[in-house]
């Protein structure tokens, strides 16, 4: 349905916040239609269809490869596989072509054995520019806790782990009354360079 909208490619009609929101809503409506009547969640985590996807993915090693790709892209060695499974299912559900692209990333990882996220991402985009979008999906999943336009985790998203010495996730502030008066940590200007080419950034509308 995305492609149907006025026949325009996403880059053009995603130009304004309003358009971006409409896009998202339409995507959600489509998903809701697809999911309608699929029944209640299994193990409280997924719809039955998604649970099946998760199970299949786990058995086939897809989730394992997704975790390996994720660990390399985050430069982390311990990511939670429960979150990973949910993210993988969400990402693939939103865009079925991601399944193959994630496997492509995994193959690249196995073959080239990059020593950093930056090296890996650079190589991936070089090999296939469309892999950038998949990398964005994976990073947004782990750091923002979202996939498929839905919250997979909120307070457990990695962006809050990185900043936990300074701020709390909204609604989970446990500094006690007036904690905010104190001085938070200073942050040095980062020296690292982007590994991927830049993409347009649009603030989500309210």
């Amino acid at each position, binding site marked *: 349905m995305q492609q149907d909208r006025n026949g325009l490619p996403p880059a053009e009609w995603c130009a304004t916040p309003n358009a971006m*929101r409409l896009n998202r809503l339409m995507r959600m409506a489509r998903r809701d239609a697809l999911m309608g009547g699929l029944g209640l969640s299994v193990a409280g985590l997924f719809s039955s269809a998604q649970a099946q996807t998760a199970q299949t993915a786990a058995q086939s090693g897809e989730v394992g490869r997704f975790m390996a790709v994720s660990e390399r892209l985050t430069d982390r060695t311990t990511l939670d596989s429960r979150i990973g499974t949910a993210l993988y299912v969400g990402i693939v559900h939103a865009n079925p072509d991601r399944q193959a692209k994630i496997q492509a990333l995994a193959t690249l990882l196995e073959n080239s054995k990059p020593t950093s996220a930056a090296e890996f991402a650079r190589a991936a985009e070089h090999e296939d520019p469309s892999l950038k979008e998949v990398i964005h999906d994976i990073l947004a999943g782990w750091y923002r806790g979202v996939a498929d336009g839905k919250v997979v985790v909120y307070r457990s998203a990695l962006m809050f782990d990185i900043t936990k010495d300074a701020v*709390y996730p*909204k609604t989970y502030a446990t*500094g006690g009354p*007036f*904690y905010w*008066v*104190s001085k938070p940590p200073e942050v040095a200007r980062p020296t690292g360079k982007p590994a991927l080419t830049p993409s347009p*950034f649009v603030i989500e509308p309210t």
Partner: protein
Amino acid sequence: MSSEQTLSADVVIVGSGVAGSSIANELARAGISVIVLEAGPRVDRQHFVDNFRNLENKPSYQGPFPAVPWARHPPNQMTPNEYLHTSGPNAEAYQQVYLRMMGGTTWHWAGCAWRYLPSDFELKTRYGQGRDWALSYDDLEPFYYQAEVMMGVCGPDPAKEDLGSPRKQPYPMEALPISYAAQQFRKLINEKTPYRVVHEPQARNTRPYDNRPTCEGHNNCMPICPIGAMYNGGYSVYHAEAAGAKFVPNAVVYRIERDSANKRVTAVHYMDPDKGSHRVTGKYFVIAAHCIETAKLLLVSADDQSPNGVANSSGHVGRNMMDHTGVQVTFISGDKALWPGRGPLETNVIDNFRDGSWRSERGAYLVHMVDDNQVDLATQLAISKGYVGKDLEEQIRYLAAHTVRLFSHNEALPDPENRLTLSKTNKDILGIPHPDVYYKLPDYTVKSCEHTRGVFKDLIGLMHGTDEQWTPGYFPQDHPSGSTIMGTDPKDSVVDGFCRTHDHENLFIASSSVFSTVGTGNITLTVAALALRVADTLKKELVHA
């Protein structure tokens, strides 16, 4: 279908937000019988907290409040959206959001509890612009204080920080200690600019107050305070119920019935979600249903007696729509880390542009430095820049610590052409038309916004800012007002200085819809003060009778 049972009370109020519920509370405490008809359902906090956490687009403050079909509210601030349709040159600038449910829109306000300036009530006299109100600041002062006590407002010591609205009493609670980010912003503005930053008065607990806890800085005043430290209309609902007022949820009023002389309202009619119709009689009626819904109800009630709508002999119902349409920018400061998002959302304001002789030329405004957790925005920005892995994490930290968001409330003027009408094409499931609003920003406001952009650019430069993200066009502030404008002349206004409609002696309106000008401060405290003044008038008349 009509209900056998007729409800009746001394005073019938439409709407249970801060205006309706605080009137109900005052009257019930005085022994007067009250029925409040609320279009939306009963709600509770815990489900909103859960909804917020499950919401993907966290900044969307309507997001945690999906409406019921019989009392829809705008789902978001987009144009077009499925409820409030706006048109005109600045349609996007009037895409207001509000909540139709028990307690009203203060479930997701930020607690900013400004009094208007004395000059805001005399814009025409002082600056030759807009209108004068049919009451003065001094008339409202005691009710401002009553509203501050009711809500629990914290604010600065007037001897140390005069906010320009003379006070006879100190704030009920001491001002909120400000965050590190705000301290730094304050210092910068005070030292490097001719401006000043003041404590924003807030309906927020700086100590336990009214059986609610002290603010713990969850940074989520909008859309939902998770602990109840900030006032919302729901508390007044609870207090009014405890005092004996009757609240009827899911009661969508659609008709205002008058006597044969068309001088007195005799009843209102509401539909339940199943379209069952009910009649409610009373001695006095108060419409307190939010600026947009109040005008809509008066227009929907048009009949042979009042073909243009109830209380609309002037033709001004639905006209003069105003807001604090503003400017918003987000940027990355090049200075030291601020880490916004520690503490409540909105605590600091540059108030130098709230009044001045230039108001004869351009609108006033105030500037909020929003103390909003920017981690999610930083993450999105850093990903879009192409960072991955450790570099991404460093960027997120840096950006989250250095993001600054500023927005302004710019004053509009009452222009009869800015008008709410009933949709000819869209109706809700009860058959009630949706509201349409035509909006063109007054030049007065456009000039004000241009001035604001200049000031913002200076501030960005001062803070060595980069990555400016200007919200496109103009930014609606959800402070709609003016749709049943107040005035002394029944020919060009809808209510008098006591919020009584010129046309119907027992019909009052308690809403920002009566504002004659919109000033710059957030509107809620003035809505509450006007409502308490309505309660005072009703008490006098009912006790006298």
